[in-house]
């Protein structure tokens, strides 16, 4: 559907990859993947050299390919995370103190130019962000729907787990509602290409989506209470503990990152 964005990954597509394909990453324990996400977050936060960050990013990109996922889509999905980087690191690239690249741009406020340090910062931030984005997508696209649900049930406290489980289940339903509304309006000649002259149409479509959500929730309450629900949806299913070798690998990753941080970055442990 053209109006639904291709800059935002469609949960239905993500789930389809997880459910219908079977690559090497599909066979890795979901908890291990969460562990890797954690170690990557830590790593991109503490690593302080562009080369290191770029290496990490490159590795994750390779893993994405090994998992048999489409690179072409990834480019579109990078748009939103890159926007933060461009809007924060963009100005910083000019403001960052350091050696200017090429000549300065004369402006009323003085000379203006991108510095080497600014450029490095920009690239560092990009690698940091895209490393985790890419791996989060890899994990989402290779972890089965039920495993995700069980983990949500495990990780989140009540009642957040209940809300998250329902959100996960109903995202698919709500997407279809939204899509149906857009389809129906398009077939009567609606024009979605300009916002300001069509703002009422947008409001109605989004309003109907919300309304349908509210009414769906009213029906949901009835059906859950009819089966004795009182705010406590526990799932019996579970995701098994990772096998020993995966645990060892994760532990090694964490140790490596922490050691590097202590020695290389914060210099807590003198070399």
């Amino acid at each position, binding site marked *: 559907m053209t109006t639904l964005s291709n800059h935002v990954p469609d949960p239905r597509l993500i*789930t389809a990859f997880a*459910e219908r394909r079977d690559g090497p990453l599909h066979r890795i324990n979901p908890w291990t993947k969460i562990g890797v996400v954690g170690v990557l977050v830590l790593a991109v936060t503490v690593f302080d050299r562009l080369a290191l960050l770029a290496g990490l990013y490159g590795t994750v990109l390779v893993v994405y390919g090994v998992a048999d996922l489409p690179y072409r889509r990834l480019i579109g999905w990078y748009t939103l995370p890159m926007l933060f980087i461009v809007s924060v690191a963009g100005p910083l690239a000019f403001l960052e103190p350091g050696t200017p690249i090429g000549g300065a741009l004369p402006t009323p406020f003085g000379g203006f130019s991108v510095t080497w340090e600014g450029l490095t910062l920009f690239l560092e931030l990009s690698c940091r962000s895209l490393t985790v984005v890419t791996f989060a997508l890899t994990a989402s696209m290779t972890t089965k*729907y*039920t495993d995700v*649900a*069980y983990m949500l049930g495990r990780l989140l406290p009540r009642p957040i787990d209940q809300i998250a*489980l*329902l959100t*996960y*289940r109903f995202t*698919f*339903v709500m997407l279809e509602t939204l899509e149906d509304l857009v389809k129906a309006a398009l077939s009567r000649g609606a024009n979605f290409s300009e916002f300001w002259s069509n703002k009422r149409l947008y409001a109605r479509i989004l309003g109907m989506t919300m309304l349908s959500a509210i009414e*769906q929730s009213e*029906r*949901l309450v*009835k*059906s*859950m*209470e*009819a*089966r*004795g*629900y*009182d705010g*406590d*949806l*526990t*799932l*019996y*299913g579970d995701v098994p503990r990772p096998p020993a070798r995966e645990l060892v690998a994760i532990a090694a990753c964490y140790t490596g990152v922490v050691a590097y941080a202590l020695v290389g970055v914060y210099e807590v442990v003198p070399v």
Partner: protein
Amino acid sequence: MSSDRSEERGPLVDLQCEAHTYPDGTVGMHEVDFSVYSDEVVVLVGGNGAGKSTLLEHLNATLIPDDGELVVDGTPITEDNKPHARKEVGFVFQDADTQLVAPTVLDDVMFGLQNYGVPGDEARERAREALATVDASHLDDRIPHYLSGGEKRLAGLAGVLVLEPSVVVLDEPLAGLDPDRSQLVAERIEQIHEDGISVVLSTHDLEFAAEVADRVCVMAEGNIIGGGTPREVFYDDALLADANLHPPSAVRVARDAGLGATAQPVTESDLVSLLTEAGNSNTAPKPSTDGHRHD
């Protein structure tokens, strides 16, 4: 219908309702007395907005009458023992999507058991059995999102049957289903009935109503305006006209063809046997009968 047994035991569910007013002020149902006896299939028919869903939702205390009483298996239901009504009266809602809340079909069937504190292993066991009774064992690890309409409904039915209710209520069980899936669901309903569970359902498909009902209740404008056996109801023109209903196909055909005077067929098979009997009793040469693949 083992009516002696049911009279002896009294109704399984007995609803005395003065009226039901929705929060926005719409009166969904007026004064209604409605009972379900053991081992019967009751079908509610009536136009859109006649109050069928409103009535059904009173039977397990999903809705509460403005003034009145619900008695389930001899126990009056109050705010405190709603769970009793919920347990004895299983409810399959029309909207199959809101019925399935858990990540897999098996989890969903176990959902009710878990709410009543059945331990995991036993719950899993019973859930598998319930899925088997509706011929849906193969669905156990499927995600609700990928189920077809008919499969969703079977899963919803299993999730209710697993609680071993004495009455199962179904709101428009055939809505949106193709003929094959409708038949599958209809067969499951018949089978539940054979297992000794009473069934109350609403439908717009009067052929289906004629087929499964022991008793038909006709609703219009929030009232039960009549009822009886399918034959009594579907040959009562005045009653059907009041409810804006038309008789089922077999009745119309028999009528229009001037056949219905004495035999009064209500289902397709009634009509067929009427016609074949008539044909046989005639001396006329028997027409070619290639079509005994009646379902």
